[in-house]
């Protein structure tokens, strides 16, 4: 273990590793100075993130409508959740979204990054164009895409008609196609950001590797698979983690685009948390759902870390 490089899960603790501890007084002073440096940030973090998270943990086992005194109900919230058809639907929809959104965004971002990683006149325009969706107001994105996907009058279906598709999908008016429509929109919106991350990663690959491979007779595909992809491993890992977290907590796009509909076909977990908590005032139950979401994201992320660690050995 000592020989492996430190990872995000094992922060570097330089103080503890230092041999021969100095005098206790000086040590305490050093610690206080250290604390005072992180205090401003920590106070904000504690007030806005840590305390609410810990409170959520407790609330998941209570009944509370934000006005009454919280009442301990043990596992009641989880029992209700287990029996709720809506919860399982939201869980399935969230997984569906993640399974569509993560690989598609990853592949699209990598593809565009490789395409745009060359010195060409005006390449900046293309890179900027692909980054634009990410900095555009999400509400505008959702409303406009909803119109593009309109079953009768929308340009998407008009285009499909023009190329000979007779049975065009109903997109956001169909329970089957609503989620694909949301996924397409989210990929379009997010790919610019991850493309920039990949572009940065591509710049760090030494050119000699490609030259050497070319001398050895490797074609473009072989170079991509055996040099580019392995060299981008750390970037891919970071992109994967960020995509996973953002996929599981998706809320805004779905809320504006379909409001979880038609019916409950695009209802995701974070929407359920919002509805049960803010709208219905069942903060205990909503905290229980939030806790489940937290555990899922934690598990998926830990698995990804493990896989990454194994790959590095």
């Amino acid at each position, binding site marked *: 273990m000592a020989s492996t490089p430190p990872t995000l899960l094992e922060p570097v603790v330089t103080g503890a590793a230092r041999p021969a501890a100095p005098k206790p007084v000086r040590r305490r002073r050093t*610690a206080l100075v250290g*604390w005072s440096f992180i*205090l401003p940030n*920590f*106070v904000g973090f*504690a*007030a806005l993130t*840590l*305390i609410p998270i810990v409170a959520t943990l407790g609330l998941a086992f209570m009944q509370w*409508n*934000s*006005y*009454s005194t919280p009442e301990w109900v043990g596992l009641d919230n989880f029992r209700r959740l287990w029996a*709720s*058809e*809506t919860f399982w639907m939201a869980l399935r929809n969230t997984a569906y979204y993640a399974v569509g959104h993560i690989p598609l965004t990853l592949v699209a971002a990598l593809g565009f990054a490789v395409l745009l990683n060359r010195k060409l006149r005006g390449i900046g325009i293309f890179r900027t164009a692909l980054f634009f969706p990410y900095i555009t107001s999400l509400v505008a994105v959702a*409303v406009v895409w*909803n*119109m593009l*996907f*309109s*079953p*009768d*009058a*929308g340009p998407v279906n008009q285009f499909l008609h023009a190329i000979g598709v007779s049975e065009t999908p*109903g*997109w*956001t*008016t*169909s*329970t089957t196609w609503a989620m694909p429509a949301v996924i397409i929109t989210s990929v379009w919106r997010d790919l610019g950001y991850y493309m920039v991350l990949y572009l940065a990663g591509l710049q760090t690959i030494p050119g000699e590797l490609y030259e050497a491979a070319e001398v050895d007779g490797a074609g473009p595909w072989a170079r991509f698979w055996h040099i580019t992809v392995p060299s981008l491993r750390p970037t891919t890992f970071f992109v994967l983690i960020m995509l996973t977290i953002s996929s599981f907590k998706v809320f805004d796009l779905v809320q504006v685009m379909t409001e*979880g*509909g*038609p*019916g*409950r076909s695009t209802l995701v977990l974070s929407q359920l948390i919002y*509805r049960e908590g*803010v*709208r*219905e*005032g069942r903060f205990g139950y909503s905290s229980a759902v939030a806790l489940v979401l937290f555990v899922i994201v934690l598990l998926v992320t830990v698995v990804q870390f493990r896989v990454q660690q194994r790959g590095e050995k």
Partner: protein
Amino acid sequence: MKSTIMKAVATATALLLTVAACGGGDEPETTSDGKTVLTMSLWNYASTPEFKALIDGFEADNPTIKIKPVDILAGEDYAEKLTTMLAGGDQTDVLTMKNVTDYARYANRGQLASLSDEVAKVDAAKYRGLDAFKLNGDYFAVPYRQDFWVLYYNKALLKDAKVDLANLTWQQYADLAKSLTTGADASKVYGTYHHTWRSVIQATAAAQTKGDLLGGDYTFLKNQYSMALDLEKAGATMPWGTANTQKIGYDSMFSGGKAAMLPMGTWYVAKLLTDIAAGKHKTEWGIAPMPQVAAGGPVTTFGSPTAFAVNKKAKNAAAARTFINWATGPKGATTIAKLGLYPAYTDDAVLAAFGAVQGMPSDPVAKKALAPDQVTLEMPISDKSSDVDAILTEEHELIMVGEKSVDAGLAEMGKRVKSEVS
């Protein structure tokens, strides 16, 4: 080291809680010249003239009180914003209740102060829609507006129609809508426009067939759904899916001449009057009673009152009660009637003020439309209303986009309401 961390966290938490507790004082606010400041939650202050009219009128009669509007700009999300504010212990004095479902939610959570003493002092018979606010024998809000649904029609598009608009049945309405539909694509004029809200179909049917929207048996909605879907199929109204994805506004459909008829609430009267006076469009419009299930019977429609309530945590509860008495009583009613809005309190003077508004239709059909025999509440009030509302909305979507047949959708509604709402 660990205990240091724990101590630091504990200290930081204690500090924060102290800071948070110091946030709001409980002293009533006053202006520099000694007036009591009354805060009032409302939506879209700039584009909803009734609030300014009520505030100005009240301040003129009560010079010691100054009202400070708490404007919630996103009118569509008013309920959610107010819910969040109240959950955070907000102390706004007067709370405007946009609809009865939200009212029931706040009242059931104990966030509103009882107004039964105020209600006991007034002539309750003159307050339309007051009954709707009675909850467990107590009143927590008093209505100031009582909107109900009528049928708007475009006079120019209907001038050749040979129908008795004052006594329309749904069958006649559907035939009329089909005959009024003309053109295609950009020049298409629909016979009627059904907005995407579930109430357009569900509340109408519930009011006219005496069905119970909380009951769990929804077969009474069948005819109304079949009629609406048939009109869509015939091309006489815009498909629900298109209206929903394009976020179509009912005003642009009607005032833009894209739909000849429009079932809608009386609040739309004020908007039409204002826009026409401002020269935004020149639609010649009229109003007729809502079509009925059978001909010749009483006019039954559904309505939704808008009310004022007092926050239980109000800083100025006394002044808030003074305002509510004024705004929901004869003076407030006359004030909003002059804007073309239908007040909850009505007497001869108020009705005269309403009829005298410039541009208000005064033909016999309109008179009949504005005096319905029975106005049923859009959604019955109970602690289940909110949960049932969510289910009815979801299943409404599935029926309207054609994912489920009417029978299957209504059966699912009943099944879900019975199993999920307890």
